[in-house]
């Protein structure tokens, strides 16, 4: 009864002394994010509407919940910009918007690259954001919008490489991997960050390199170096797939040593790992909850395998898999970032032929025979060469994003092959892996990621 009384009073006196002590302050060290705080004279829910000048109601925060002391973050904002915002107290369908106020976002650190969007066709691509790690030292995690404006960043981590970042569904924050840039110091870990940039947890991932994956139950999986002595070749570096549970229990799921013979590991060894001969060179790990399987791509042995959590290989293509048609065999050449699409096809980047041009390739598998065939590819004749990394992502709308790794170019292609969006990076930076974020307040709640 008292509650109804308050609502009635508020409804007849909108905004009159209801909200007090509104403050909006850029976060220290993450000045594109604004923390807004306010108090209400009654227990109320509420949110904040905000946007750039001229579009003040473009975005809104999630509801803050009932209470009298409120706090929320304004996310997705460009740097060095004037932002308008207003607090909107609510109770059920009723709301009492405050007047708009303004606040400035801060500047980006010099280490944040200037990204250049050269094509943007909003009839063909979704607005939204990209969560991007860095392909090379220093480790740098960014979120940028379709204009290439960086809206969120993790300060540069000099001496480390952080090639992969993922949304963290448990916190609506982000997580990324990190390891020594020269692999000469075993400091591998996965870090979980709140959207305000605060470190929530550091998960140790011994001998980690390249890639990690996360399970719904909080288990973290990663690619680890598996270094062993070999009678013929001496110290050889293979790959292991390892998991650590939320309680800290660590187990090996699979190792290249379990299933494969070492065959001429010097063929592609470039001295990448100081621990020994670089045999398999795993470069990406994808966990597919629908298939309940991992998919791992290996550069040096031209192989992609699907592995279950018991360590059994379910399927594979390439040098260490069952023979396939020559055309498919040729396409699995230095493969990167293989994962399964919702249609059950295998999507990855590869550098076929003379190894001087990178393509995105999609393979379909005959359900009866298991035979693979190419159903889509892009990149032939385009002249992009991903010496490092590279990936292809299928979007919900059927578009495909191809990240050409160290070539410093990302394109989004329509199903007909038209380039609808293109990003170029400045020399010295290129994105590691990308994840599309439709809703920055719920970054895990969308597709577009492996």
């Amino acid at each position, binding site marked *: 009864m008292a509650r109804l009384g308050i609502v009635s009073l508020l409804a007849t006196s909108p905004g009159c002394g209801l909200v007090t002590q509104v403050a909006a302050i850029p976060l220290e060290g993450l000045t594109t994010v604004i923390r807004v705080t306010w108090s209400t004279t009654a227990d109320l829910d509420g949110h904040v509407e905000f946007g750039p000048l001229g579009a003040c109601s473009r975005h809104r925060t999630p509801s803050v919940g009932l209470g009298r002391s409120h706090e929320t973050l304004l996310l997705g904002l460009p740097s*060095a910009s004037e932002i308008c915002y207003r607090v909107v107290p609510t109770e059920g369908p009723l709301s009492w918007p405050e007047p708009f106020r303004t606040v*400035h976002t801060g*500047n980006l650190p010099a280490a944040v690259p200037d990204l250049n969007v050269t094509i943007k066709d909003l009839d063909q691509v979704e607005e939204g954001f990209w969560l991007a790690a860095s392909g090379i030292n220093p480790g740098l995690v960014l979120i940028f919008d379709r204009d290439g404006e960086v809206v969120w960043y993790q300060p540069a981590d000099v001496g480390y490489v952080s090639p992969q970042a993922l949304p963290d569904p448990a916190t609506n924050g982000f997580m990324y991997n990190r390891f020594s*840039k020269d692999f000469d110091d075993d400091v591998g870990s996965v870090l979980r960050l709140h959207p305000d940039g605060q470190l929530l947890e550091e998960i140790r991932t011994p001998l980690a390199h390249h890639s990690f994956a996360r399970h719904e139950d909080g288990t973290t999986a990663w690619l680890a170096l598996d270094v062993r002595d070999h009678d013929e070749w001496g110290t050889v570096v293979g790959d292991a797939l390892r998991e650590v549970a939320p309680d800290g229990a660590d187990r090996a799921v699979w190792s290249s040593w379990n299933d494969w013979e070492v065959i001429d590991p010097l063929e592609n060894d470039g001295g990448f790992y100081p621990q020994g001969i670089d045999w398999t060179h795993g470069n990406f790990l994808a966990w597919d909850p629908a298939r309940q399987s991992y998919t791992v791509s290996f550069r040096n042995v031209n192989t992609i395998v699907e592995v279950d959590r018991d360590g059994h290989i379910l399927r594979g293509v390439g040098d260490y898999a069952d023979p396939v048609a020559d055309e498919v065999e040729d396409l699995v050449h230095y493969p990167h970032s293989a994962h399964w699409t919702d249609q059950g096809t295998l999507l990855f980047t590869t550098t076929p032929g003379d190894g001087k041009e990178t393509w995105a390739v999609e393979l379909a598998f005959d359900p009866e025979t298991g035979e693979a065939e190419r159903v889509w590819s892009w990149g032939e004749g385009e002249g992009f060469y991903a010496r*490092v990394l590279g990936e292809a992502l299928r979007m919900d709308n059927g578009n495909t994003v191809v990240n050409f790794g160290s070539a*410093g*170019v990302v394109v989004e292609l329509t199903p007909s092959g038209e380039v609808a969006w293109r990003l170029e990076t*400045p*020399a010295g930076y290129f994105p590691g892996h990308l994840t599309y974020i439709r809703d920055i307040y719920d970054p895990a709640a969308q597709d577009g990621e492996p």
Partner: protein
Amino acid sequence: MITLMLALTGCGDEDILLEDTNNYTFTSTLEIGNVEILEKTDIVVDWCSLTVDFLGLEMVEGEVDYVVLSRWELTKEELENTLVATNLPQKDLSGSADYKPTDGECSAPLSEFEFLGTPILVEDEIYQSDTSTYILTVFAEDRAKMLTFFEPTATGSADPIIIDNNSGLVEFDVNVDAGSPVSASGTPLVDWSSLTQDGAAQEFPLNKMDRLFIAQYDLTVEELETDFVYLETLSVDDWTVSSDALLDYDLSTIDGFPGFDDSSLWILAMRCTTCYNPAPPFLTVVSSE
């Protein structure tokens, strides 16, 4: 707000809002030498005789932090014209590797240059090309100090690639007081958030302004222009603070900075230490009169 701040400029320690109209003008030219070498050969890179950088400034012996080898899909002329003007795109960089000298080393064979910790394969990476341009850049204190082109050919020399004081030259033509001076006295707060273009009329790289530089000179503007490359060494006194990720700075917080006065020539500059071009993107004369 801008109108208000302008109106207040010159009233004691009032805030200063820097504007494009305050900026000096400069043009830069870069000349880079070229060495023809034998392709696919493990040739030594030698910077032992490098004592002066491409600005003509003395280098400290043994200060070289690393030497970067890069291969660009651009012509030499395009590189000379763009290196000092803008940040080049990664897509034009088809290869890179670096060497970090230890214990005062001043030479290394190409085969010891590394990419992501992996030594390059000289036979595969150093080859004659009609479309590629190779460049070696010496870095110290995280800044480019000297550079040279080299051109692998089938008939080139197997002698070392010498990087010395004459390998590259940057020249400036500056007009320090091209912009209207900023009126200020004391230790105001300086705000550079409104700047949109640099002194070469290029887009102002706002988030690259990682140093705020203030200096006092017993020189005329003309004398400073003549010896512009010695901007930091000719000053009676100067103060440099990190401005990374900032848009303004309260000068009253700078240790030892006495404040602007009318006793001599004062300049205020915004610098970019990660840019190839060492010229400050913004520089203005500060007038206390």
